[in-house]
């Protein structure tokens, strides 16, 4: 019994999911559409952005929204030299943990920069809005150095 040649075929597993978001995520996305960023106060008083629905320590529902700034500081970053097809940018960029002004907990988003050497932990960045905001996380198109 011979081994036949290998048969390969590419396929796409895809669906556009229709997600209901609930009041907390919904509030954040609604504010994004209006080009505002809100966080939520956790049980220990820390401001979390984007807002979590439930507190990690007490498991209680969170509800106290806090508007935060659109600028912040890079807490950590990863420099992507070769963006993948799914990535939001087609030229080198950074993923970063960004602590926005008025927030305590960093959020993760992408940072546009010309070179890795331009990005640093502690660097200030500001949100760049998409041309059209629709209430989706990518309404913040990216951050760029402030």
């Amino acid at each position, binding site marked *: 019994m011979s081994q036949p040649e290998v*048969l390969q*075929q*590419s*396929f796409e*597993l895809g*669906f556009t*999911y*229709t*997600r*209901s*978001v*609930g*009041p*907390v*995520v919904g509030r954040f996305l609604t504010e994004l559409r209006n080009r505002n960023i809100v966080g939520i106060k956790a049980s220990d008083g820390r401001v979390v952005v984007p807002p*979590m*629905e*439930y*507190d*990690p*320590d*007490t*498991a209680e529902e969170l509800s106290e929204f806090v508007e935060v700034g659109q600028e912040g500081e890079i807490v950590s970053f990863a420099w992507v030299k070769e963006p993948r097809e799914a990535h939001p940018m087609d030229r080198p960029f950074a993923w970063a943990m960004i602590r926005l002004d008025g927030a305590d907990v960093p959020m993760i988003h992408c940072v546009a920069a010309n070179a890795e050497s331009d990005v640093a932990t502690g660097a200030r960045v500001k949100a760049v809005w998409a041309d059209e905001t629709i209430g989706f996380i990518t309404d913040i198109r990216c951050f760029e150095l402030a």
Partner: protein
Amino acid sequence: MANLAAVVGIGQTKYTTKRDDVSIAGLVREAAVNALQDAGLTWDDIEAVIIGKAPDMFEGVIMPEIYLTDALGCNGKPMLRVHTAGSVGGSTALVAASHVQSGSFKRVLTVAFEKQSESNAMWALSNPHPFSTHLNAGAGGYFAPIIREYMRRSEAPHDVGIKVAVKDRLHGARNPLAHLQKPDITMQEVEESFMLWDPIRFLESCPSSDGACAMVIANEELAEQAPKPPAWIRGVAMRSEPTMYAGREEVSPQAGRDCAADVYQQAGITDPRRDLDCAEVYVPFSWYEPMWLENLGFAPEGEGWKLTMEGATSLDEGGDIPWNPSGGVLSSNPIGASGMIRFAEAARQVRGDAGAHQVEGAKLALGHAYGGGAQFFSMWVVGAEKP
């Protein structure tokens, strides 16, 4: 010998086509909070969480326990995710029970869910794959030929499935959580409904629902202290067999018969129709009631349909062995949760807490789930009395 364990809290969501007011976390959370409230407990009282759902493709969230950690108060606790196809809700309850029955945990929370409105189950189940013929027309397409073979063998009248469809919807009308509320449904309405997968009509099929179900399971000591009556777990069993093999009995799978025999033996049941007071059995297509009546030993082979037609399984007709008093899968089907709903509804019955669909004086009940190509089975028997 397994340690004793009992259900001390049950929580469900209202089942509906689309819960458009909550996130996935919010849906799961709601059932969990309801279960904690029912048990008179808080998050701190829970030692571990066991979560189940059907394929991740239904919501497009891979291994969702990772994202649901906080919604279920799991930070710092063990969290386990079970997936055994359509039987998963039942299997998840059994894995949760094993946490307590093994003596490893005193009290755990288990949750199963599906937010089917996020996608389309037909799509997820019949997603084209290279080199395959792609003739898979969803679950109904798979089960219709098996039902046809049952009809041929049993020579059952054509309206048995119609009768089950009506009976379960009338049961569902007693259950405010049930998705379909059809108190005025008639045999004629079912018969005239669209034939989807001949011989399965639209109204002989389950709906597609969003929903979650949760239970708190505790050890003997804590169950005895529980504020509401516990449902004692009297037997647990699982069986699996391959989807296809030469000579496989698809109408009445061996795995189902073996699983039932195992769980009955543990619970001391010798005649299920006589010994059990009611059963919550996974019947997603109406004809599966007579088929499972035989498979589970409530009726001899070929005669399950007679029980259905006599009204033995109907609350409204005062039957001696009501099946699916909650309305069953035919009234609500959040796939990943459907098995756990059967297990939880069986527990509600023996706790005397089933409201308008309570089977009077129910002391011993069967919860049943199946999945895959009717190849994965999970069952438990719960009782009002401690074994």
